[in-house]
């Protein structure tokens, strides 16, 4: 790969370009947009988990003081399938006026039976969540031949049931838009992972030509897969603005985030794994199901919200049988969420692998080195084990003395991370300054800084000489910021633009290498017009396929069930490191999100009322500063591989490594995430299991039996990521 070997910025640490603006409060987020005459928008949502809506009457709402527009979410009669489904939207002169008016809506609704418990929804006599479909949707099953024979011939076979929770999208900045019409032209300020994707979606939904829609996203407080399109709220916001004839800002509340923006599907996994006497994996069998809400999950353009996941995850197993189902409940749809499917898949696979190691009396790290086909992860495991002190720290499960037990665990991840398709505009001014414009967006990941670093490096300039514009559909097109594709998609386009610009400048100025000492002189020859070139993504500068491993060290209080994470070590490959500081920042964030998945986060729904019981950050618990351990990051910097994204792979193995460390500490497995004190104590047998749990176990067993009855699959296994 032609990335420079000797560098000033590339591969080193430059501070976030917009850091000072963010720290000083100058950075303008969607919620900060204020336009003359701007109205506040809000959504009226279903308080029924299931209902047929005959009519939504808004006359009284429209007549309320300060209200400028009120619209229904859908025309005519329709069905709603979850508490929080959008019914109508209102815009008015103040937040208070709108909130007051929301109570005046008249809804003619026929409530229907509902189910929010996945196991109840699987019962044969359960009412259907969506009348046209059975609650259990069979996914595509896969198998290789001779699975039963392979198990029969195995020296050791382990079985386990593992469960993961529904994880909610709670970026610090909630979903939201500001929309303004000038005649038939729409401008939106959208918190989005895809300004161009939003433009298409707005144009289509509102029947406006694409050249009359502009989407702006200057700064963003995070997007993890749920912000690829305007969402129902974005379209309602733009419709309200059109009806009101005034700009409207509609920002969702934390409460709404918990209901209707997407989430990570749950999983219930019954796994059987076999190995030969040397520890080589021989056979794998999985029955699983999970919920994606009332349907099979939204495909939001960045990966679907399917409850299926890659299996067997990352390891090479010759004989496999995989049957995966999806169960509908009356809840909001799932969508892509940071490495969709992978943390789910990793949790079950890495857990059963450790359980196998226990059964074989082997070190779980050895078992990974024996069975992981990735040379990169092999290298990472060796490097990480050395740095972590794995050999010195590893003890037999549950063997540490005293009530507070320590343990260690590890896990690996794979992610495709490819990216392509970006165009970039580079402008060189006669005074030697440079502006780069790209229609990508910076989710808070450091995309702006990456662009600045590449341009400054290639042009031989100081960072300060390079201004960067992103997040505007008037800039050259780039793809969605998802799939960990942004850096691999953007950096080559900047490289290409720089190369072209240097060639043109050399030609026009007759200075063979206009960089360095000749730069100002060369630029001066431009006269009054800046030099503008367009760079295009090209092959040979970026690639895909990121591997990473993580090690976790924990302490578990066996009397209270409390888990303290002492340390996380990340060894991550992301090809050529563009900017070390923002890359490590991404990994810190991925690990912290993984800690939330491991120990704290879980959507809780109530069976009797159908509501989400923890639609806030008080009882939907995110890790806080005091919960974050030392995070040690080792980057395998491999410029020869080109640029690879890192945003998703770094969150995949965290929870698995923590769960394995907890199992190593306790000597028993806590088979369900999040690993909260009640679950630790239950796994230790310190809590008499209530009869309800026994019923749930029986229901789970019969659910797996139903999945196992799915038709025997034919044909070769699909190779997972």
């Amino acid at each position: 790969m032609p990335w420079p070997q000797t560098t000033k910025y590339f591969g080193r640490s430059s501070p976030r370009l917009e850091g000072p603006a963010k720290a000083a409060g100058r950075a303008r987020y969607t919620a900060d947009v204020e336009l003359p005459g701007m109205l506040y928008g809000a959504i009226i949502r279903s308080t029924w988990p299931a209902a047929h809506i005959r009519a939504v009457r808004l006359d009284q709402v429209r007549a309320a003081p300060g209200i400028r527009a009120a619209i229904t979410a859908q025309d005519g009669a329709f069905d709603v399938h979850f508490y929080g489904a959008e019914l109508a939207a209102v815009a008015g002169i103040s937040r208070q006026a709108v909130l007051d008016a929301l109570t005046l809506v008249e809804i003619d609704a026929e409530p229907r039976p509902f189910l929010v418990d996945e196991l109840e929804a699987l019962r044969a006599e359960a009412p259907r969540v969506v009348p046209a479909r059975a609650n259990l949707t069979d996914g595509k099953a896969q198998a290789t031949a001779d699975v039963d024979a392979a198990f029969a011939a195995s020296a050791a076979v382990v079985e386990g049931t593992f469960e993961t929770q529904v994880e909610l999208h709670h970026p610090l900045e909630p979903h939201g838009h500001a929309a303004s019409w000038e005649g038939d032209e729409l401008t939106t300020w959208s918190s989005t992972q895809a300004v161009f994707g939003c433009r298409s979606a707005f144009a289509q939904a509102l029947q406006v030509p694409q050249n009359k829609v502009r989407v702006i996203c200057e700064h963003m407080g995070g997007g993890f897969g749920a912000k690829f399109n305007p969402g129902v709220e974005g379209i309602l916001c733009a419709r309200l603005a059109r009806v009101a004839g005034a700009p409207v800002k509609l920002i969702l509340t934390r409460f709404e985030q918990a209901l209707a923006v997407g989430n990570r599907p749950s999983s219930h996994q019954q796994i059987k794994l076999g190995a030969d006497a040397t520890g080589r994996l021989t056979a794998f069998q999985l029955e699983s199901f999970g919920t994606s809400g009332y349907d099979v999950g939204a495909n939001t353009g960045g990966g679907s919200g399917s409850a299926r996941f890659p299996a067997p995850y990352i390891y090479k197993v010759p004989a496999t049988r995989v049957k995966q189902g999806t169960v509908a409940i009356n809840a909001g749809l799932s969508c892509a969420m940071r490495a969709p499917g992978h943390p789910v898949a990793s949790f079950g696979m890495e857990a059963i692998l450790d359980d196998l190691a226990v059964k074989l009396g082997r070190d779980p790290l050895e078992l990974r080195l024996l069975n992981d086909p990735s040379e990169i992860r092999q290298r990472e495991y060796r490097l990480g084990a050395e740095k972590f002190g794995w050999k010195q720290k590893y003890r037999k499960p549950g063997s540490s003395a005293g009530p507070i037990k320590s343990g260690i665990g590890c896990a690996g991840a794979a992610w495709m991370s490819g990216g392509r398709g970006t165009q970039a505009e580079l402008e060189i001014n006669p005074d030697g300054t440079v502006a780069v414009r790209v229609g990508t967006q910076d989710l808070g990941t450091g995309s702006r800084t990456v662009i600045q670093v590449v341009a400054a490096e290639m042009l031989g300039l100081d960072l300060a000489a390079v201004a960067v514009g992103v997040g505007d559909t008037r800039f050259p097109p780039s793809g969605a910021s998802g799939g960990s594709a942004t850096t691999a998609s953007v950096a080559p386009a900047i490289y290409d633009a720089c190369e072209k610009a240097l060639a043109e400048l050399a030609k026009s100025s007759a200075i063979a290498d206009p960089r360095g000492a000749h730069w100002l002189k060369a630029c001066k020859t431009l006269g009054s017009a800046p030099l503008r070139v367009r760079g295009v993504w090209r092959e040979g500068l970026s690639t895909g396929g990121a591997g990473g491993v993580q090690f976790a060290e924990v302490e578990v209080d066996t009397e209270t069930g409390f888990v303290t994470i002492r340390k996380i070590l990340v060894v991550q490959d992301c090809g050529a490191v563009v900017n070390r500081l923002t890359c490590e920042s991404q990994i810190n964030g991925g690990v912290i999100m993984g800690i939330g998945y491991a120990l704290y986060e879980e959507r809780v729904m109530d069976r009797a009322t159908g509501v989400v019981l923890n639609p806030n950050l008080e009882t939907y618990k995110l890790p806080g500063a005091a919960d974050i351990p030392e995070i040690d990051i080792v980057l395998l910097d491999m410029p020869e591989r080109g640029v690879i994204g890192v945003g998703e792979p770094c969150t995949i193995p965290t929870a698995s490594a923590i769960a394995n460390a907890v199992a190593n500490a306790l000597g028993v497995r806590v088979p369900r995430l999040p690993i909260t004190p009640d679950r630790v104590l239950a796994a230790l047998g310190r809590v008499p299991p209530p009869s309800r749990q026994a019923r749930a176990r029986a229901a789970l067993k019969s659910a797996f039996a139903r999945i196992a009855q799915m038709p025997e699959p034919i044909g070769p296994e699909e190779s997972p990521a």
Partner: protein
Amino acid sequence: MKPFTYVTARSPASALELVREQGRFLAGGIDLLGEMKESIATPARLVNIKALPDTMAVTNANGRWRIGTNVTLATLAAHAGMKPALTGLVEAAADVGSPQIRHVATIGGNLAQHSRCWYYRHRDVNCRKKGGRLCYAREGESKFHSLFTGCTCLSPLGSNIAIALAALDARVFVQRGRKVESMTMAELYATAWRTPTAHHSLRDDDLILRIEVPAAPQGRSAYLQVAERSDFDWALVSCAASARVVDGKLQNARIVLGAVAPIPWQADAANAALEGKPVTTATAEQAADLLLQEARPFGDNAYKIPIARALVRRTLMKLVA
């Protein structure tokens, strides 16, 4: 949020007068504003009590600590003079919420706070505590709920300051009509034990003026809690203890559990069993047995029993350490 008027009271008498017309007392507002935003409370008038005289100070005279109702939890948590004498209270204050919350929340407001039950706090659930028919936690999600209750409501007392104060034999002084009445911590919450809609024993126009804590010579106290997160989280179980420790033996011992009942959970028998005893695993286990013997776990909260056992032992160990 329903529109409301806002007035500042300058005396307890005027505060009571002003609050009678669908009013609520407003101090830090941490609890009340949350309820108003969720339309759980819809007062027509907020009566600011932060300007009441003599409510902002902590004093120590005549063998008693007097803590004004408007003293913030941050003040309590950082009070150097109080720390050696009322360690348990200071530690409990330091464990409440976040630094931002502690700088605004007052001790009076903390004691008078309403249930944190997720059914009660949900805008669209009309639970028993709000006057509805059912306590949904009984058949529903009861992980954070009580092991003991005298009524249909399963929501536990959320104030851990109350747990620490109960162990210290504190009294709450309340302006009730024209009189100032004092209550023990047990009395402050007794109504919530038997009445599902009650959060405490205070009437709408009862105003907490101050808390008084006896400054027992050589008295020690301690507080511990276990939550799901390391910080900024509600206790799953909390425990407070106090005693005089003479020759390694406890005198006038008090041991109290929190987050397991709508009241500070105490048992005279447990206190009596510790009297004159050293703290050992055996004496601590005995106290825990006596405190927990009538525990009645529901669907999801049996795990609180082993945590409570561990906390009783550890808090007593801490007390004598």
